[in-house]
């Protein structure tokens, strides 16, 4: 069930971009004759495979831009000789949307008058419901219906039949029979709200401030590309995962091996610690290992301080004061057991801030220590024997042999992308080698 009432003064959300694109396709298409023609034309025009073309043409039929002549109630595109016709723009979904009750009443009335018993069961029910609901305009409805019937009698028989088909197709979409999918279901009607942004001078002043600030910000040249390559081996969707993907093999070994705390972590996990400082800090085992290293260097208090500050930032508000006091006692007070080395300016600022403790009172000190560890201890840790041993000991799990269901073994070869398949087909001989090479490269690259 959807809410279809709009708030007073409401506005219809613009759902039309989709319709406009479909209309562009229709306008570009030649007059369709058979389903097969439509599929072929789409495949050629967009360089796509048959499956995709079936999908798109299915959309065009379901939204009413093309309708079938045989079996009009089955809004499916058959890729054979079944005949299809364009819907006239007068009856495009976007032209007359939403379809009005009045028009539907007139349509049903016409059908009723033209031939008694032509209305289907569900149409009869709707007819009587409408009759009750808009009883006050019923004379108008009947009059309009009669008028339209009279006008159509004056047309040539062929034209009249076409118009009837088109009108029927329109109403099959806009008032689908019970059980059929409602293609125009747009979901929850989001009501307009009264607190809309008003374009007054206050608003413009704010915008100007924001723009001025935005103008002055630092920008980086766009040639600095995404560093996605690092994580490629760690992306299970692309590279698969060892020992086996739990959803396929129903074996949760992968997760057991990668729990928060395990005796020995996997190699991939330890490798991730070297990608960025945050990766190390976000992993509980990584933190523990790093702390062990820092203790050896007598700088463990830095990490301890950072962790305590994080706890304040994300923890309960009621305990902030207590936690701040604890940090002061342990890390900041002169002669504290785990005193951290912060520059005097930041220390003064923090100490005065502690008098009115809040969630972010330690922010500056925390940042200072964070960068200290990141620039100094972190790189040395990555070069240390401790880390290197961890990496060497890291488990690389064996891929489990799926002896029970051998035929479910996932195929890791990759066929060329849909666009490439089509290029190969149309450029036989000519430039096929280019596309072919790309295909084989990718097959080589994706085999784990």
């Amino acid at each position: 069930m959807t809410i279809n009432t709009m708030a007073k003064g409401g506005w219809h959300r613009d759902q039309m971009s989709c319709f406009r694109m479909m209309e562009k396709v229709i306008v570009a298409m030649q007059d369709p004759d058979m389903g097969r023609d439509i599929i072929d034309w789409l495949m050629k025009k967009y360089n796509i495979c048959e499956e995709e073309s079936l999908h798109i043409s299915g959309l065009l039929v379901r939204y009413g831009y093309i309708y079938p002549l045989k079996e009009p109630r089955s809004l499916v595109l058959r890729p054979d000789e079944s005949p299809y016709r364009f819907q006239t723009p007068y009856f495009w979904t976007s032209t007359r949307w939403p379809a009005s009750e009045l028009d539907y009443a007139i349509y049903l009335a016409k059908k009723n008058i033209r031939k008694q018993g032509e209305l289907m069961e569900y149409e009869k029910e709707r007819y009587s419901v409408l009759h009750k609901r808009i009883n006050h305009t019923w004379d108008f409805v009947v009059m309009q219906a009669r008028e339209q019937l009279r006008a159509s009698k004056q047309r040539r028989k062929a034209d009249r039949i076409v118009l009837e088909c088109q009108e029927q197709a329109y109403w099959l979409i806009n008032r689908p029979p019970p059980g059929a999918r409602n293609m125009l279901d747009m979901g929850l009607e989001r009501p307009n709200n009264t607190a809309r942004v008003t374009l007054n001078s206050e608003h413009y002043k704010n915008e100007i401030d924001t723009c001025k600030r935005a103008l002055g910000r630092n920008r980086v040249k766009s040639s600095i590309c995404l560093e996605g390559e690092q994580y490629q081996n760690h992306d299970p969707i692309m590279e698969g995962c060892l020992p086996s993907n739990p959803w396929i093999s129903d074996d949760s070994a992968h997760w057991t091996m990668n729990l928060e705390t395990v005796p020995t972590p996997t190699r991939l996990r330890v490798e991730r610690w070297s990608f960025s400082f945050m990766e190390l800090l976000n992993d509980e085992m990584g933190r523990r290992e790093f702390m062990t290293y820092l203790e050896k260097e007598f700088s463990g208090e830095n990490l301890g301080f950072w962790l305590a500050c994080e706890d304040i930032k994300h923890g309960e508000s009621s305990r902030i004061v207590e936690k701040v006091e604890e940090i002061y006692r342990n890390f900041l007070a002169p002669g504290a057991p785990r005193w951290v080395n912060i520059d005097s300016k930041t220390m003064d600022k923090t100490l005065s801030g502690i008098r009115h403790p809040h969630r972010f009172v330690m922010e500056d000190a925390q940042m200072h220590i964070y960068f200290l560890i990141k620039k100094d201890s972190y790189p040395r840790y990555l070069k240390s024997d401790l880390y290197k041993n961890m990496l060497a000991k890291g488990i690389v799990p064996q891929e489990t042999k799926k002896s029970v269901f051998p035929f479910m073994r996932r195929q890791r070869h990759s066929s060329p992308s849909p666009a490439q398949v089509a290029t190969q087909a149309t450029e036989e001989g000519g430039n096929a080698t280019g596309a072919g090479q790309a295909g084989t490269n990718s097959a080589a690259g994706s085999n784990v």
Partner: protein
Amino acid sequence: MEELRKEMENLKDQITAVRKTFQDSTLQEAAAGVTVVGRVQLKTRKTLRGHLAKIYAMHWGTDSTLCVSASQDGKLIVWDTITTNKVNAIPLKSSWVMTCAYAPSGNLVACGGLDNMCSIYNLKGKDGNVKVMRELAAHTGYLSCCRFLSDTEIITSSGDCTCVLWDIETGTQKMVFAGHQGDAMSLGVSPDFKFFISGACDFTAKLWDIREAECRQTFGGHESDINAIGFFPNGNAVITGSDDATCKLYDLRADQELLTYQDPSIMCGVTSLAPSKSGRLLLAGHDDFNVNIWDMLKAERVGVLAGHDNRVSCIGVSSDGMACCTGSWDSFLKIWN
């Protein structure tokens, strides 16, 4: 007032000009040497059945096996995706729910919708029952999206054009992020929890500093409502999906759009998106019942997930990157990998 408006337009043009000067190469040129991904074929591994009406939202838990989904049948269901069992089935006061979220700790879930409120439920209550812990009410418009920062803070976006940071313990608004000129439709939190991004019906996406409650950057370019938004895994870029059937990638450091993911054969709007763990692949759910998979560096379509019988309304990749879950108006959730 006309002068103010002219001044604003002038500044905006200047920003566009400056952005152009920093555009010394396109992502396509830079990614030309990268190996091709090839066809990505994901299969449905599990189908989660149990909802009785359209599913509007889903969110993975951080443990990568549990997820929560919200449906118009008025239920919030927490699923164990491996066994397909329902861990919790929470009845909601209002069935017009539009969003749901799972807290990183796994203790709480939240949902909201046309009731203009964000309701927080405690999954780990003392007597085993799941009860409403808080109802965060202050928005004057529908709740379109919510995301937890921790067990004590949550960010919501609303149809009243604002986003709000709440303190869950006290149930009050801590910060209000105002600036959008259209309904804020979705939001995403950065991996370091310092920033969040919001996409709205004014066709722009904004980056907000959580601490300072300021809009740091605004990105435009879309021709229709932005329905979905997400951070690139390394936190340096933002991906948006819109009703104009395209997705766009904006880089935060270069402060501009790097790529548009579009194809003339894709006509229906994007409802939801999720990047794969490495960020190489982008999965986008559309109104035409399909999910399109894009190679993010080369802007080529490398796969399609076709399995739903109605609009794909939500999509998510688990935090360990192993599986992708799609939820649809056909009332089913499917796990793919």
